[in-house]
């Protein structure tokens, strides 16, 4: 078979693994959260049942073209991120479609889903969606600031914008990880990660009890199913990106699973401990400490 076709099929398999791992991770984290508050929590297979139920609803209604396209854009954001991140280092099959400038493209894809969601949710006509969108965009813009500063710092440090090369530079034991060679960038990025995952201190946009659920107020059935699928992919892709940039990448799927779990657990750990920020608090928080740390990280490598 043609190499491009086999590569495409392998990437699809990778997407399948990542989706399922993301869903298992989210249910595990909800169980951990439940144990912290003394409950038993959802069964570990609950996300799959929810997904089947969402795809099997009998009535679906639309508010127009953009309403359809919104979730598709969001899914593109997740899948696009996955496509250009090398999942397993040193393996041409699992390095997906990463190329020399993929870091910039991924920064763009992070924002892309949010924009698509903004277009789709506004078409729904629900005023709460519009409020959720404006909050989400303003929060995400400030999340990007420390994140981008950290990435610039890495680019100066390694003199490259390719994730594969950054991972290659970190091979050779724990001490060569960016975590140790560039701790300021790591701290800034890990703080911005809290916002990107949207767990507790920064879950104002999509928390079910905020007015009332933010952008997806009007989404139901298949639309919501697509959004949830994307959530699973996006979480793993985001964690894999951080693993590649700061924690030495993964040599195998097993290592990837351990590392993404721990990175995801960092955000859940913070979320269990701290209550929710209001929008102006979270925006100010991101523009203070993480941004300053990010600037320091750049200055150190100039």
């Amino acid at each position, binding site marked *: 078979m043609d190499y491009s076709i086999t590569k495409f099929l392998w990437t699809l398999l990778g997407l399948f693994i990542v989706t399922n791992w993301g869903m298992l991770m989210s249910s595990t984290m909800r169980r951990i959260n*439940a144990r912290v508050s003394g*409950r038993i929590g959802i069964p570990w297979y609950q996300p799959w049942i*929810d997904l*089947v*139920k969402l795809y*099997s609803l009998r009535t679906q*209604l639309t508010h127009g073209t953009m309403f359809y396209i919104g979730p598709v854009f969001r899914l593109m954001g997740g899948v696009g991120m996955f496509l250009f991140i090398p999942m397993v280092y040193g393996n041409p099959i699992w390095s997906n479609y990463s190329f020399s400038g993929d870091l910039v493209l991924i920064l763009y894809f992070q924002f892309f889903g949010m924009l698509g969601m903004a277009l789709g949710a506004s078409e729904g006509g629900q005023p709460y969606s519009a409020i959720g969108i404006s909050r989400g965009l303003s929060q995400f813009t400030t999340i990007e600031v420390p994140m981008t500063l950290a990435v610039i710092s890495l680019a100066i440090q390694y003199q490259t914008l390719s994730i594969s090369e950054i991972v290659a530079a970190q091979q050779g034991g724990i001490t060569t990880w960016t975590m140790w060679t560039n701790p300021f960038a790591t701290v800034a990025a890990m703080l911005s990660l809290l916002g990107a995952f949207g767990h507790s201190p920064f879950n104002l946009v999509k928390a079910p009890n905020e007015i*009332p659920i933010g952008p997806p107020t009007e989404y139901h059935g298949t639309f919501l199913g697509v959004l949830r699928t994307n959530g699973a992919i996006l979480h793993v892709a985001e964690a894999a990106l951080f693993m590649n940039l700061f924690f030495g990448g993964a040599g195998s799927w097993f290592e990837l699973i351990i590392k993404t779990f721990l990175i995801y657990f960092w955000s859940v750990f913070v979320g269990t401990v701290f209550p929710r920020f209001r929008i102006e608090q979270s925006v100010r928080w991101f523009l203070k400490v993480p941004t300053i740390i990010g600037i320091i990280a750049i200055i150190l490598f100039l």
Partner: protein
Amino acid sequence: MEKNNIHKFEELDVDKFLAPENEKRSVLAPDGSIVEIDPLKDYFCQDRPEELKPRSGPVEKFLNWARAESLWVLGFGTGCGSIEIPPLVTPRFDMYRYGVQMRPTPRQSNVFIISGYLSVKTLKRAIRSYEQMPSPKYIIALGSCTINGGMYWDSYNTINRLDHYIPVDVYIAGCMPRPEALLAGFAKLKELIKAGKAENANEYARNFDWYKANQKKIIKDWNMPDFNW
């Protein structure tokens, strides 16, 4: 009925209750033509609900199993019984382990708990929420108020029998039932769904005229479309 000593209650007109943005009006289009707008017809879908046939055989069985194991409850407390719902998410009762979760919007929920008495004003909102929920949808009626009016049976403003206005799947008797009873109600609802007997959304579509007549009999200021999609 003596009506002459009451001020202005006589001049009842349905249009009086329309919000100003929903009134009929004509608008000048950019090209100079005049466009007539009737928001109740233009902005809302006026179609009747349709009966949606279940799929056949094992597929429907599997889907029913999934629906039963993932019940999303609309967070809308209609009466005093809504105080029995919050304990369900606490460690003592923990409904999440049965796949029951709370959702904030009717678009994403399948189960509507009518918790206790329903005044006419709330009934109007309950109908709107119920009709906006996507199709395999179930109603749990909590407390004796929904069965026969309970202690409010002779009140001028609370309904007596819920099943005359929206179809009910499971009744939970009591005044008020404890959260354990609610969990038992969820278990019963799961049984019904898995047996394929919880098809009340279709029941509602089939007897749509009867339900609408009953609803319009008591909701005097009907200022919404006949069916809220």
